[in-house]
Every structure is written in structure tokens, then in C-alpha cells.
């Protein structure tokens, strides 16, 4: 009876120790040096494996972070600033504070403003339509409304409005991952600084045609008249190729420009209603 106990104990221990020993030797022989920080960084990342950083998954991003000398250009859209700060601490590297951004759609040409000139009947993809011709309206710059951006968004933050046929961004859901910006073949979407209370002022048009042509095809096109440029007290607006652009970092949301625009191409969103001029306060599509 005690035999069994002795045999058991001895053989089992023997096997255990033997296995440990062999393992130990092999581990020494086949050592691979891998940076242990990769694991640490990976744990600090959100682990969503969304590819928003343009790497194949979080681990690859972690490896990249460890490898790179300057990580300020490496950016995980999902991670918060704390996450990134933690990673920077692990790596002992500097990291740029991320300015919160949000996507805005720079086309306001709903069918009432921008009548259809033909009927598109190809595969329902903006990239395919845009590779074919100028589009189903007179404007060769405007949104095609086939929802490439909606499909690109992993966060359910951008949707085509059925009535206007234009995409609308849900500010709270948008992580500024840039996916829709890349997806849009017409470069209509821009990531802009996220202001307090989600306020925004921007020129909702990218048409570079001459004023007359642009206006003919779309009632709310920017015609490049330059009146907004003149009224802006902060020199935030520039005019190039018949198109005005408001620099989000220079703009201080004074709202002087919007009422100046003869075509209502400048949108202001999430502001309290204006008292004096009713016309401009009417919030056009693009608001959620």
C-alpha cells in the first residue's frame, strides 16, 4: 500500500523535474530576444483591432510604436489621450496632445438646391460613379450620395439622410478616425477641430468652378465672391480657386461671415438662434 504512494510520488516528481530541466535547456538554446515593451504597449491599447491606425491590428501597432523614434505621428483613433500618455510613459517617448476633431460634410446640395440632370444606374458606390462621370447633377464636385462614407465608418457615426441624400455626421459617435475622409472619392469630408458644444462654422461646398457656373448647378454653392473674407476679423478665411475656406484653428466662431454669404454656403451649427436676421438662422441640412 505504501509502495503505491512511494512509487507515485517518486515517478511523478521525477517526470516533473525532468521535464522542467529539458525545457530549461531548450529555452536557453533557442532564446529569442523580443522587446517586452511590445506586450505592455499592446495591453495599454484599446484592443479594438479596428485598423484605424492603418496597421493590421493592435499588436502590429504596438510593434510600430515600440520601433518608431518619434511616435507623435502614430495615432490610435480609439484610444483616449490618457491611453496614449500611458503608452508614451511606457516607452519614455514624447507624444503630441491630440486636438479633438470631428468629421464635417462639405456639401449641402440637396435635390432642391441642386437639381438632378440625369439618372445614375450603375453599381451603388460613390467611387464607381465618380470614376464614370461628373455625377447625376450639374455639379462635378458635390456629393454623389451613394454612401461610401457610411459604409466606411466603423462607428456608425455617419449616415445618408434619406431626404437630402447627403451624409450627416453624429458628432458624439465620430472618433475622427479618418476612414470616411479616405473613402470619399470627392474629398468632401474634412476633419475639423471640435469646438465647445459641437459648434461649427464652415463653408459647406468645395466647388471650384466660376461663380456663375457653380451657382447655375447648385443654389447653395460657394461662388467665390469673397465677402466673407472681407468681414472676418481674424483672417481665418482664404479664397482660392473661386472657393472660400475657413481655417478651423483661426476661426473664433464670431459668426460674422455666415450672414454675409449670398448663397448661404456657410453653415453654422449648434449656435443659439440669431435675433436680428431670421433668414440666416434657418438651419439648413447638415445639422443633425
Amino acid at each position: 500500500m505504501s509502495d503505491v504512494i512511494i512509487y507515485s510520488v517518486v515517478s511523478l516528481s521525477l517526470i516533473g523535474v525532468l521535464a522542467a530541466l529539458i525545457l530549461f535547456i531548450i529555452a536557453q538554446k533557442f532564446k529569442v530576444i523580443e522587446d517586452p515593451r511590445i506586450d505592455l504597449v499592446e495591453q495599454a491599447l484599446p484592443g479594438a483591432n479596428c485598423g484605424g491606425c492603418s496597421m493590421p491590428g493592435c499588436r502590429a501597432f504596438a510593434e510600430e510604436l515600440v520601433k518608431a523614434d518619434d511616435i507623435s505621428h502614430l495615432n490610435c483613433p480609439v484610444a483616449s489621450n490618457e491611453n496614449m500618455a500611458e503608452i508614451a510613459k511606457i516607452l519614455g517617448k514624447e507624444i503630441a496632445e491630440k486636438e479633438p476633431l470631428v468629421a464635417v460634410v462639405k456639401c449641402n446640395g440637396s435635390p432642391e438646391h441642386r437639381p438632378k440632370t440625369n439618372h445614375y444606374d450603375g453599381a451603388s458606390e460613390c467611387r464607381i460613379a465618380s470614376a464614370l462621370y461628373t455625377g447625376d447633377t450639374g455639379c462635378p464636385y458635390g456629393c454623389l450620395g451613394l454612401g461610401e462614407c457610411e459604409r466606411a465608418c466603423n462607428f456608425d457615426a455617419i449616415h445618408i439622410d434619406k431626404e437630402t441624400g447627403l451624409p450627416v455626421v453624429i458628432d458624439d459617435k465620430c472618433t475622427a478616425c479618418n476612414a470616411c475622409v479616405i473613402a470619399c472619392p470627392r474629398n468632401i469630408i474634412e476633419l475639423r477641430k471640435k469646438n465647445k458644444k459641437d459648434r461649427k462654422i464652415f463653408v459647406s461646398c468645395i466647388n471650384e468652378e466660376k461663380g456663375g457656373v457653380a451657382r447655375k448647378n447648385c443654389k447653395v454653392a460657394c461662388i467665390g465672391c469673397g465677402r466673407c473674407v472681407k468681414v472676418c476679423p481674424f483672417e481665418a478665411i482664404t479664397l482660392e480657386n473661386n472657393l472660400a475656406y475657413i481655417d478651423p484653428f483661426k476661426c473664433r466662431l464670431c459668426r460674422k461671415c455666415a450672414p454675409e454669404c449670398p448663397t448661404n454656403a456657410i453653415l453654422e451649427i449648434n449656435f443659439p438662434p440669431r435675433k436680428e436676421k431670421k433668414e440666416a438662422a434657418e438651419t439648413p441640412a447638415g445639422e443633425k
Partner: protein
Amino acid sequence: MSKLITVSPSPHMYGGDNVKKLMYGVVLALLPAFLVSVYFFGIGALIVTAVSVVSCVGFEYLIQKHLMKTTPTITDGSAAVTGLLLAFNLPTNLPVWIILIGALVAIGVGKMSFGGLGNNPFNPALVGRIFLLISFPVQMTSFPKPIVSRTQYTDAVTGATPLEIIKEGISEGIPLSELMGQIPGYFDLFIGRMHGSMGEIGALALIIGGIYLLARKIITWHIPVSILSTIIVFTGILWAANPEANADPMFHILSGGIMLGAIYMATDYATSPMTPKGMWIYGIGIGVITVTIRVWGAYPEGVAFSILIMNAFVPIINKYIKPKRFGEEVKNG
């Protein structure tokens, strides 16, 4: 301009075939075999077919409408083909409730779970049939006698199929020459006077339908020919080696579901390879596995299993067997 002109990428012209026409083409091709079945099995053939087709179409409708919440596409005819082919794979005295289970499995598990037409990796009708065969081995292997039980449905006189007789006999060590006396002659096999599943009898009618499918370009010849030739070669070798223990190739291709399988079921679009070379591999695989199961396996018949097994290989075949690219191997001269 009041009416807007249409703009779309090229081409601007389309061929005449569409999914509906193809599917109803298959239905048409199956008609002769159906009539043969009705002639031999009578009321049973009618009931089984009606129940199977209606329930397949019905289940597809219900699943699409209520589970997948999409617009039902039952008019494309693919569910009807599945229902018809499922019926062709069942004995004509099968209780209605078993047919319903078969249809639910074929359409629900075999097809719609994968997203419906074109998505299923396994042949839905065969999924239904094998599911039933394994679930209800008794009911699925009692086949009514042709002609005599035309007016009976459930309590038809049953008997064994030629393949069962041969298999059982050989396992008992009875020489083949003696067994051949117990089965119908080759002419009867050819026109379908034998025990068997509803639609697998009647090689002649099946071949006529097959010629129609080929002429309409609904199927290509590669799969049927590769299956049949493999079976002929393989069984021919076995037969030549020991004619007393192995049936001859003629018997093999005329009995059981080989014709039905090779012409109508192995050719199912969704579950067969895309290139001629792939089709040959697929067909040879089906032939070899069929004979293996018939000769060495537990089941007297192996076509259904072998098609399902080769269905599983199809994605791999499609991945590695590519069509001959233009300009690939430059043999200029």
C-alpha cells in the same frame, strides 16, 4: 427635359438568361423523369413531390420574410428546384411529416442559414436527404414496388433496391451471377422499373433532361462526364479483377442515383467548382468516393454522400485551380 436620361457604366446590353429562366429550365428538364415516376409509383410520387416543393418554397418565404426580414425571392425558382430534387431523393411512401422536416432542413439549414441562393457551400437538397437518411433510416430505406403500389401511399408494398440486394448478397458471400437473377434486367433499370427513390429511377428520362440542359447551356458537360467516366473506369477495374464479387460498370451507372446525381445535383451552381479543370477534379472525386462507399462502406448507395463530401472541397478547388489565364504560358508559334 422632363425624363432624365440614364447614365451607367458599360456594358449597356445584357444576355437573355436570368436566374429564373435557368431554374425553370432545370424544372423542365426534370419533367420527363417526374412523369416516369408518376407512371411507376403513382399517387405516392405526386404527393411527395407536391409536399416537398410547396414546403421548400414555403419555408424559404417564411424564413426570408420573418427571420431575415428581406423581400422574399421565391419566384426565382431555386427553392422549387431544391424541393423537386429533394422529392426525387425520397422514397414515394415517405410520411408527410418527414418530408416537411427534410424541406425545413434543406432550406433552413442547408440554404438560408448561409444567406440563400448562391451562398450555400453544401447542396441543400442533399443536406435534407442525408439528414433524413440518418435520422429516419427505416422510413428512408423502404422503397415501394413499382407499378403495383400506384394507388397506395403509406402502406405500399416495399422491397429492396437493386443496390441493396447486391450489397447484402455480396456481404453474405453469394456469388454475383446468382444475385443478378434477383434484380430487374438492364432494360428495366434503364427505363426505371425498379425500387428506388422517386426520381433516381429512369436513367433514360434523366438523360433526356440532361441533353436539354446541355443544349440550353444551363450546365456544361464536364461534371456529368467526369463522374460517369470515373465510375465506369473504377468499377470496371474492380469487375475485371473479380467479376463474381463486383458488379459490372453498366449495373453501377444504371442503378441508384448516379444519373440524377451526376446530371442534376453535382452540377448545382453554388456547390460545384467554377473552372473546367476544377470540375474534373470534383467529378473524379465524386466518382471515386461513390464507388468506395458502394463497394466497401455501410451504405449500399454513396452518390449523395460523395457529392456532399466533394462540396466541402469546392472552395479549396476554386482557390487553387484557376482558369487558364490569357497569355499565361507563352507558347507562341
